């Protein structure tokens, strides 16, 4: 595991003069499940297409298994892609679709037939060999697209928002299915999505991207609990991002109230952004809280209540709690020190975009 399976080095790409990727570096370890996550237009799909070979980078190198494959055409690359809208061959049966890559490689008939059976079984569609693609449901088409890719035993499977077109229930099922497949096959997955929940559920590593830069890379827990900037915090889950002043190590002032925290090294009296997840806010009796506010909104969400608490400065705090506080009730806000995440304020928008990528 000394060397990464795929290594993107200083990749830049622009379309029609618009910079899509700017000097991007990314390493993917063998046998990992890496998710590229970000809003549309952030460059995640372009990154995937560069790995797949469908788009040539303007600058930089793509290293696969130690070999420079930047200029290698896609048909020579030992990786496969599952496309956004499946891109199945409508003029072929399901078996022919799955056999396509194997036939081109000149595999024997028996081998191909075994592989088709195996792959269909793997995606829970045994017996579908001779059906026509057009008669399948979206979820079934998705499985076929996956089966078509994995029979080629690629070292790396690229998935471009493969679940985007499916409905919620099906999407959840397929998420588990994909994890199972990855574990059974031992293939490295690079997965592109704009759905943060999907990313958190499935990945070993999440790469959050925005405007052509990597904002943060880490395990789902790191990304969720310790967002490195406001963009990540905002994009991943719900959060309260409030301006604060770091008075000194382990003490931050928010709207005039002092909160104990665990962060250090920001200097004294430094303006910062403070991230607090809604489920980390405890509502207590007014006098017991650090800040005082009034419940202005209440919705029952099943697992918890969602409330809005307005503090005298006018900020509306989003709070998730299993305890219910009726609208109009005065409450106190309390946050445990380790639930407070402190981030440097970006000096400019550019810097915000660059994030940790320097």
């Amino acid at each position, binding site marked *: 595991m000394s060397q990464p399976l795929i290594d993107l080095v200083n990749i830049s790409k622009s379309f029609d003069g618009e910079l899509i990727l700017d000097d991007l570096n990314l390493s993917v370890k063998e046998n990992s499940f890496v998710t590229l996550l970000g809003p549309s237009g952030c460059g995640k799909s372009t990154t995937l297409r560069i790995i*797949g*070979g*469908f788009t040539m980078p303007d600058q930089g190198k793509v290293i696969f298994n130690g070999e420079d494959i930047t200029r290698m*055409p*896609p*048909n*020579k*690359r030992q*990786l*496969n*892609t599952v*496309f*956004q*809208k499946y*891109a*199945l*061959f*409508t*003029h072929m049966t399901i078996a022919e679709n799955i056999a*396509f*890559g194997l036939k*081109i*490689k000149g595999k024997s008939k028996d081998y191909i037939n075994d592989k088709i059976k195996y792959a269909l079984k793997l995606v829970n569609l045994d017996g579908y060999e001779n059906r026509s693609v057009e008669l399948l449901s979206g979820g079934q088409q998705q499985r076929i*697209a996956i089966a*078509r*890719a994995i029979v*080629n035993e690629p070292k790396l499977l690229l998935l471009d928002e493969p679940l985007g077109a499916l409905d919620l229930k099906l999407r959840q099922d397929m998420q588990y299915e994909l994890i199972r497949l990855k574990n059974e096959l031992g293939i490295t997955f690079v997965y592109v999505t704009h759905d943060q929940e999907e990313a958190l559920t499935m990945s070993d590593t999440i790469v959050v991207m925005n405007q052509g830069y990597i904002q943060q890379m880490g395990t789902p827990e790191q990304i969720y609990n310790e967002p490195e900037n406001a963009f990540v915090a905002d994009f991943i889950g719900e959060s309260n991002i409030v301006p604060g002043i770091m008075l000194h190590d382990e003490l931050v002032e928010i709207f005039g109230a002092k909160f104990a925290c665990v962060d250090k090294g920001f200097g004294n009296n430094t303006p910062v952004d403070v991230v607090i997840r809604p489920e980390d806010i405890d509502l207590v009796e007014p006098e017991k809280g650090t800040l005082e506010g009034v419940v202005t909104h209440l919705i029952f969400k099943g697992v918890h209540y969602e409330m809005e608490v307005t503090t005298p400065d006018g900020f509306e705090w989003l709070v998730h709690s299993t305890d219910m506080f009726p609208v109009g009730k005065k409450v106190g806000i309390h946050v445990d020190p380790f639930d407070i995440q402190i981030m440097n304020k970006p000096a400019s928008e550019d810097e915000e975009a660059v994030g940790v990528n320097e």
Partner: protein
Amino acid sequence: MNKNAKQVLSFPYIIWMVGFTVIPLLMVFYYGLTDRSGTFTFANVMAIMAEDHMKALLLSLAYSVVSTIICLLIAYPLAMILRTRNIGTGSFVVFIFILPMWMNFLLRTMAWQTLLEKNGVINSILSFLHLPTLSIINTPAAIILGMVYNYLPFMILPIYNVLAKIDNNVINAARDLGADSFQVFSKIMLPLSVPGIISGITMVFVPALTTFVISNLLGGGKILLIGNVIEQEFTKGSNWNLGAGLSIVLMIFILISMTLIAKYDSDGEGTAF
């Protein structure tokens, strides 16, 4: 509107079709299967076996097959190129290839005479460049050229339409699965564009097979096609029965192409417009 009320909307056209498509065709059969005195006979249809007619038919078949193939060979790469270009928006392509039709068909074809003649435009240019001159006017080559020229748009448009509908990711998927450029073409593009090709072929083949104008204008009257034979029976020979009989033979070929279309293009995907 409920279903029945909706169906009523098609009644005027159904009546129209009966009056102006079905009955006229029956008239062709009536004339074709009777002689001048109105007695039933197969003679007019069997007249196709006469040497002159057979020869004209075979010539027509040969020319139309050749010009259909040439059209296909020109149109397919063109449609492929248009597909990859941003200028290849549907309206622009249709625009470019329909536009010549606003210049009259006969004049367009006549203009080829001016281009191809011994002292015509092309030869003037060639001799100015000290190149050997062409002498194809009044030859089969000129007729085929006229057919290709006039019917090429009917090949380009349906092929372009099916090609433009192919998702780029389908091609990417094939390359991803190891297909090289040729395999992408032969295993993906070509099979997916079959409806367009079939529709293009029939739209070129049928009019080329039956034309009499192009052979008249560019063939110097030396080459008799089946269309010329039929036209002359109606306008000069005044044997309408024979003309109708030979038309019945032509319709057999048209029937074949309709069957082909129905088989390969059941969704109407490959229509030109």
